[in-house]
Every structure is written in C-alpha cells, then in structure tokens.
C-alpha cells in the first residue's frame, strides 16, 4: 500500500506539472518510474503513454468545448504523429535500455533549454500572442485571426514528434507546440491547446503496441493513472494562480537533475 500511495502521488505530481506547463506529464512519469521505482524502461514508457492520454483527454474535453483548440489542425497533423508513434513504439521494443535512457536524457535537456528560452523571450518582449488568443473559438466572435501555413514542412515535423512519443513515452508536445506556433504561425495558446488534443491521438497510437505486447503492469499503471487524473485537474485549476517564472524555474531544475540521472544510467552507472 505505501508503494501504491507513492505511485499515486507521483502521478499527481506529474499530472499537475503536465497541466500547468502544457505537457503530457510523461516527461516526469518515465524517470519517476525508472529511477524511483526501478521499473523497466519499456514498462515505464507504456504506462506513461496511457497517462499522457488521460491528461490529454481530460484537458481537451474543456478546450474543445470552449472552442480553444483547432481540432482540424490537430487531426491533420495527427496523421503524421500517428505514423511516427507507430514506428517509435516498434523500435522501442528492440532498442537496449541504455540507448533509450540516453535518448530520454537528451530529450530532457532539450526540454529544459526550450523552457528557459521561452521564459527569456517572454521576459524580453511582450508577446503578441496575448493580443491574438483570447478565450474564444478560433473562428468565434472576437477570436484571433490567424492562418496556419507551411503544412508541408509541419507534416515531417509531426512524424518526428510522434516518433519521440512512441519511443520515449512522452506526449510529444515539446515538439508539436513550437511546430504549430513557430513553423505554422498559430498563436501560442492555440498551439498549446491544439497540441494537447494531438498528444492524446499520438500517445494512443503508441500505447496499443505496449498494451498488447504486455509491457504494462495493471497494478502499477492503475494508481499512476488515477493520480495523474487528479493531478491534471488540480494543475488546470491552479494554472492561472501561479507565477509561470517560478514554476518553469522549478521544473527546469528538476528536469536537469533527472536528465543527469538518466544520463548516468545510459552510461552504465547505478543511478
């Protein structure tokens, strides 16, 4: 029971951070399960993908209802991420654990870098996104007027995002959000909510392989999934009350620490 409680609390933590920072939560679940509970990496990745779906569907229900997510774009790019996730999930079954740990460590460092860069950018200049994305439908009254472009460039990017998701058990939002925002030109908030819809679709494509291959332990996954759902609801409720700079700062410190631990595991240490 104490271990179940710790698993559930880990899920709450990952779900809350995931909701607060617009990530699926997998970026924390995989290292928590592997480093904290000595769970094999493929089992952690499979469990994480199911949790990513839980956080995505929970948040997407609100965002789609409120007209804040571009469902058409999510489904169009979803085709690319699904292809990538299918390839990633198959490859993950054959790659040595050390290689997966090394790749995950590199992903964590990239995530930290992206978040720090985002903070610097928002600190140096007021974002024009704030003017663009009000709390309304992309086509509703008072909605941001934007047109997405460079779809041909975004499709290969979405395949890459899906591949990272299927391989490492993360939502892929760390790639799809910049892809939709910077490459396709959608406002930041629309990019986050649209990515949130996408990561559920992407994670599902990867999760089937893990579920049916037998890489998920039901007694391990249940408390984590339930914790993630509670944490995501808490995180969504708190998202407008906390100062982003402190939140991201804390997140970056945690992510870099975990990246170092995963790096040590990749090299062959005992972390």
């Amino acid at each position: 029971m104490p271990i179940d409680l710790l698993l559930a609390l880990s899920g709450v933590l990952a779900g809350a951070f995931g909701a607060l920072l617009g990530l699926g939560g997998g970026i924390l679940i995989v290292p928590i399960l592997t480093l904290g509970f000595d769970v094999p990496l493929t089992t952690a990745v499979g469990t994480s993908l199911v949790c990513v779906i839980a956080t995505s569907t929970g948040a997407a229900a609100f965002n789609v209802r409120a007209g804040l997510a571009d469902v058409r774009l999510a489904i169009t790019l979803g085709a690319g991420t699904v292809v990538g996730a299918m390839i990633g999930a198959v490859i993950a079954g054959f790659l040595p654990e050390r290689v997966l740990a090394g790749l995950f460590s590199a992903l964590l460092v990239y995530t930290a870098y992206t978040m720090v860069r985002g903070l610097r950018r928002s600190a140096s200049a007021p974002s024009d996104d704030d003017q663009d994305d009000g709390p309304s439908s992309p086509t509703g009254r008072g909605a941001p007027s934007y047109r997405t472009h460079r779809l041909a460039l975004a499709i290969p990017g979405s395949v890459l995002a899906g591949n990272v998701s299927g391989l490492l058990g993360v939502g892929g939002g760390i790639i799809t959000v910049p892809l939709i925002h910077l490459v396709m030109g959608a406002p930041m908030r629309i990019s986050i909510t649209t990515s949130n819809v996408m990561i559920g679709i992407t994670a599902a494509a990867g999760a089937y392989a893990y579920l049916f291959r037998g890489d998920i332990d039901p007694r391990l996954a249940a408390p984590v999934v339930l914790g993630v759902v509670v944490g995501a609801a808490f995180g969504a409720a708190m998202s407008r009350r906390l100062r982003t700079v402190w939140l991201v700062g804390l997140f970056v410190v945690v992510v870099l620490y975990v990246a170092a631990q995963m790096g040590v595991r990749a090299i062959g240490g005992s972390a």
Partner: protein
Amino acid sequence: MIDDRLGSPIARVLRGGTLVAVTVVAVGYVLGLIAGDDGPGTTPMLALLTSGGADALIGAGLLVLTLVPLVVVAVAAIGFARSAERSDMLASLLTLGLLVASLATAILISAPA
C-alpha cells in the same frame, strides 16, 4: 475553425470516455487492493482481459482510455462528412485509418499463434 455542432459531440466523447475509463480502472484497483495479491505483473492485454477479476477490469479501463482518441477522430470524420468538408474529412479518415491499423497490428502481433 470548429463550430458547436462538431465541438460538442467531441467534447462529450472526451469527457464521457475519460470518466468511464477512470471509473473502471478505479473499481478494478480497489478490488485488487481488497484481494490483497500482487497482481499478474506485465501481461499482454488479451491475456489480461480474459483473466477475469480486478486486473481484467483495470486492463479494460486502460483499453477504453486508449480508445477515446480513436473515437474522437471517428466522430470528427462523421461531422466533417455531414458538413461536406471534404479535405478535413479525408484527413480525419486517414488519421482514423492509421489508428485502426496501429490497434489491429498490436492485436495481431500479440495474438497467440
């Protein structure tokens, strides 16, 4: 980009599917705690579903959860077809086909020979 005619059914699927899945997982988890055993460990889904008891319930809940995005894409495809939005309907059908292929491949690979 999205109107209420499409957004409402998709939101209902997302909310309802998540609620059903999480409830089934929670019931299975509680039953497992009451049973007091350690469970079967990592088990392929087909074997898990046919094993009965608490773990089959957890497995069913997890499976329902992973099927929610697939149903969402199907509902979107139907919505686009009804409003004669050909390109969006084709994109939805492509994504749906890939998800179904992913599911079918996973089932076929794991099925006992």
